[in-house]
């Protein structure tokens, strides 16, 4: 990838949760900070929370028979997806938004990211798997409103006192996108 922009170096996040907090509190604090950075359009700082090898994936839901629940979402590395990104392409998307000439996000949308029902599924020294629900409200220009609700599975990598996001799988509760564009990070 010699032609792409700058060297990618992930830096751990600085959160205020103290070392005496429980792991769950620290994870919750981290996810809240992440959403805050996106809502405040601090996209470069948001990118710093992503591991250099991040897999960022949002499959497409289909309507399938009840006896085939595993078919509901498209498969990774094989089928279509709304997002199937690594750090390099997420950086490209940020750069596109930051130029002031990406008309689908100019003027910038107002967003509020909410994560709830946070649950640690497993934790080792190198990986913490976290499930949560998200609610993302997007308002563009005057009357355009997009409401995204769904489930997320994140794999976090502990770095010192903080975390980097190593893997994010986003399961949106929509099969047809009910809006014209998907210009927001989850």
């Amino acid at each position, binding site marked *: 990838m010699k032609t792409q922009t700058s060297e990618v170096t992930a830096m751990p996040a600085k959160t205020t949760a103290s070392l005496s907090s429980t792991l769950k509190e620290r994870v919750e604090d981290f996810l809240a900070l992440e959403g805050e950075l996106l809502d405040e359009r601090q996209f470069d700082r948001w990118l710093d929370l992503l591991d250099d090898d991040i897999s960022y994936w949002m499959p497409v839901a289909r*309507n399938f028979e009840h006896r085939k629940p595993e078919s509901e979402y498209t*498969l990774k590395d*094989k089928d*279509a997806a709304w997002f199937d990104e690594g750090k390099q392409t997420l950086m*490209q998307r940020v750069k596109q938004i930051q130029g002031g000439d990406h008309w*689908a996000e100019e003027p910038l949308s107002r967003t509020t990211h909410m994560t709830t029902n946070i649950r640690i599924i497993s934790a080792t020294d190198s990986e913490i798997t976290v499930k949560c629900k998200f609610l993302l409200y997007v308002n563009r220009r005057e009357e355009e409103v997009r409401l995204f609700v769904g489930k997320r599975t994140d794999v976090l990598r502990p770095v010192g006192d903080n975390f980097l996001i190593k893997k994010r799988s986003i399961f949106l509760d929509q099969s*047809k*996108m009910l809006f014209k*564009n998907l210009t927001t990070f989850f």
Partner: protein
Amino acid sequence: MNLESEDKPLIDVQSGMIDRKIFSDENIFEQEMERVFDKSWLFVGHESLIPKNGDYFLSQAGREPVVVTRDDEGKVNVLLNLCTHRGMPVCRYDRGNAKRFTCPYHGWTFSNNGELTGLPLNKEGYEGKLDRSRWGMIKARVACYYGSIWATFNESAPSFEDSLGDMAFWLREFMMGPDGEDDGLEAVEGILKSEIPSNWKFGAENTAGDLYHDVSHNSVQRVGIALTGLRTRHVWNADKNTFRTLNVAFPAGGHAIRANLYDTPNREYFSQWSQIPEADEYFRNAHYARQKRLGEKERLLNRGGIVFPNFAYNSANRTSASVWVPRAAGRTEVWKWVFLPKNAPQVVKDTMRNYLLRYAGPAGMVEQDDFENWHSAQVGSESVAAERLPMNYQLHIGHAKWAWPEPWIGEGALVDEGVSEHAQRVFYDRWYEMMTGKPRVFRKEAAE
């Protein structure tokens, strides 16, 4: 029904003016369903999605919901997905395999070729007299064209190939693999469906040929998403051979495409996927294989186009298609189909899929800005104050030539060079003919 007043035609392609009502008027929209969509062949999908007998998927033939099946004899059917009893959709799953579809309302059951096979209370209620041959699912005429599947419910429409005319070469070329092999594509699982608060024709006319709107795509061009090693959004931008840009339109059917006509026959391959060497090697070999297969037409690069009225494709290694599903004058569903060369190595498929998903659809870094435009253009079509002025389609008007610049481009082709709204004028000329029954302006006999 009169759509326009005597002194103010909706469409005047000779002066390049179009009444903005055609994008916002609900009466016109309803007339389009009958006069344009019902009389046209419509894209409904691809055979690679139904390889086995019994396989099916849901699709849309314009506004009409359909289920596309491969029946027990291997034949492709396009069935109106509505029970003939009370009108319920009988198939509720996006994809699957089934011998029959049972309506959830009263249990009428149809085989996968549409025949009515199960009728509750057949003896007790209908005395065994209901004519099952009459009450099967409504079946469309079907045309399978190099993997693509087309349908019309109209019995008097001309055959699919007749309706394509000289557009046939371009559609066939689109369905080829990069090496020029016929029927060389497969559909990626998962259709990207989204919704634009906009009239379907804004998307359609744009894909017919709008080389004027580069300003919309500054941001993605600045970032660069093609894997060329250059800041580009198209891989062919890395081809240094010189070419003429053509807007090739086919007035009889209303179809149109954009193409590069390279100056030199059998041009050399310039690296277009340099960031993924294995993919680049595949495309290098494919480039030369295609030259051998296509003969003199290898000088053409098919960049994309539209099969009238609502099938728009992007080619030149961006193999994807949009179907504009009309829902209301100001509401359009976009169904985005992504295709890959079916015989390519996995690394090529992965490279292309990743590129295409970054390019196309509502999360695509190119098409996001298109969708934004069409939504915004709808605002101007609903303005009463703006009604005093038509929409302007005068760019590079009056320069198109028949069967030009090479006769083999086709007798039915009316061609303009460079940045022009020629293809859009041809699109609306055909639309106007279907809507009003008045003869087209762009007729070969009229020119002679």
